[in-house]
């Protein structure tokens, strides 16, 4: 029953990030994080439309993407805290995590470039057969990045099985969409012949339905789709915002969006009893997640050059 699962996923992401914020304040997650609180409905709804064999590309605001796709929360938190038990042995951190086992190809820091990467992954999956698809997340800030537009053209030209998910949360850091985007976001998809639509990203079931349709088209060889999800981040761009005074959104706007909290919207669709049970399970899991993280070792400083290359080529030290 998707309603309950969606609720569980959203609840997990919300509480995971709230616990992560504590670890940021405690200095355990030194990078700080880009919280996705308020946008969980997109991650949950999109990934609910995917199969385990499908792949995703996450963003810098990607904890929700990974959790929804099935990454182990213990090892994700450990990764964010730079522990060797992390999904990437601490080398990816909060910003650039990848989790091949869960189908998470990665999260490049170059905003928008995941679109071309996703096309390449989709090409490989299509060649292998089996109808697998790729979901590629990016933000509204990414839609004026040339490499993203080049990637859309390639995905459409070659009818690749990708669902492009634009999380339009209204801002790229401090930059409002209106001052950055001439024309529209869906118009960029249409320019390349890609079926494109805008849906309410705060309603997890709307997101799921829209994604499911696009996934079906992709599996059937119908090529890529673009879905613009109207959403909002309830917190700052990055946790550093709590320390600097950036006034680019007004209180009223933030308050209005908080009225449309995906957690509340989905909670209303789940019985009191189920919610209580799920909430309790999530809390128990997150206690375990935090304990696991704090108990995990930090990487050995001697390993700074590990994983630079596939083979053991000689890498000279900084002093001879």
């Amino acid at each position: 029953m998707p309603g309950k699962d969606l609720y569980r996923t959203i609840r997990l992401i919300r509480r995971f990030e709230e616990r992560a914020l504590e670890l940021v304040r405690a200095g355990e997650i030194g990078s700080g994080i880009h919280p996705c609180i308020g946008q969980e409905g997109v991650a949950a709804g999109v990934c609910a439309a995917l199969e385990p064999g499908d792949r995703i590309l996450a963003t810098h605001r990607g904890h929700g993407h990974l959790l929804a796709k099935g990454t182990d929360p213990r090892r994700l938190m450990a990764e964010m805290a730079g522990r060797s038990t992390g999904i990437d042995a601490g080398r990816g951190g909060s910003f650039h995590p990848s989790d091949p086992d869960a189908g998470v190809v990665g999260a490049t820091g170059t905003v928008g470039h995941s679109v071309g990467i996703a096309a390449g992954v989709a090409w490989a999956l299509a060649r292998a057969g089996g109808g697998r698809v790729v979901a590629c997340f990016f933000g509204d800030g990414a839609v004026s990045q040339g490499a993203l537009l080049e990637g859309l053209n390639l995905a459409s030209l070659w009818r690749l099985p990708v669902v492009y998910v634009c999380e339009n949360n209204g801002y790229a850091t401090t930059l409002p969409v209106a001052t950055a985007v001439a024309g529209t976001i869906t118009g960029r998809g249409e320019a390349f012949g890609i079926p494109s639509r805008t849906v309410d990203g705060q309603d997890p079931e709307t997101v799921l339905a829209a994604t499911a349709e696009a996934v079906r088209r992709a599996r059937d060889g119908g090529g890529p789709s673009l879905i613009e999800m109207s959403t909002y981040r309830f917190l700052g761009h990055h946790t550093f915002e709590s320390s600097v005074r950036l006034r680019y959104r007004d209180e009223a706007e933030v308050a209005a969006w908080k009225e449309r909290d995906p957690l509340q919207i989905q909670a209303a669709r789940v019985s009191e009893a189920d919610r209580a049970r799920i909430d309790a399970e999530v809390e128990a899991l997150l206690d375990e997640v935090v304990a696991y993280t704090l108990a995990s070792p930090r990487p050995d400083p001697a390993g700074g050059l590990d994983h630079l290359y596939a083979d053991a080529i000689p890498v000279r030290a900084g002093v001879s």
Partner: protein
Amino acid sequence: MPKLSYLKALNRALGDEMARDDTVFLLGEDVNHALTNTTHGLLERFGPQRIVETPLSEQGFTNFATGAAMAGLRPVVEFQIPFLLLLVFEQITNQAAKFRQMSGGQVSVPVTYLLPSAGWRKEWGGQHSDQPYSLFAHMGVKTVVPATPTDAYGLLLTAIRDDDPVVFFAPIAALGVREDVDHAALQPVPLGVGRVHRPGTDVTLVAIGHPVHDALAVAEELAGEVSVEVFDPRTVHPFDWAGLAASVARTGRLVVVDDANRSCGLAAEILATAAEEFALAAPPVRVTRPDGAILGAVPQLDLALQPSREQIAVAVQKVLKSTG
């Protein structure tokens, strides 16, 4: 005397130059809200025609700056992260920097590319900590890496006034550096002229950017046993070869600290030129990051890859002991 921080020096230089010359304007991401602090107060002062907020279209606005410069303006383009200079590497090195020559000297492209966050960004992952200044030197683009607030102020003024493209690297690790300055005495610093921060007689210790401060600390620390001259080229290209030659002529020994990847970096160029042209009493030594080092998300891993004061001290002692 009032204190001036490196970051404030950038902000002041921009403000002073924009006030002096109204062809100067700045564009970049989040500049309205001065995310990097370099544009703090400038939107209010100069308005949206001079402080221009851009979308995430680095190649587009870098080309835009080229065009505006060819048409008589002096754009300053701000980039938030080192890799963004890699993203626009072709637009700077193969377009902006080549139009003058391809036009037989008719066209000028006076653009300043300002990176107020060069180098290591603690725990920000593998894509935020590059130090790519040697790449621009190889391509022949004027490039500066100031270490102090007064040099940052003076070189930013000079970069903006220069009729060619200039890439300005402000190391994150130096942004907090503060200096007592008489604001009235602040002035342009010429390109291609190094600075002897501390005179010495036994070893020339070359450092550029934030390692200058490590070099000075090591020189002080070793003052008892050895007299270290700390030379800061300040400009990567054109490089002050005459200034370095004079210093090495005095000391006869050379150590170079460069917080960048080792292969084909600035330190390599300095040692190569020294080997060809200078009389050295002992083999020179580089202290750099390893070949192809990627600074990542875990500080203790990163710190093991960056030049340390201890390594610098050991290198100084090594060149003292050995003879060529």
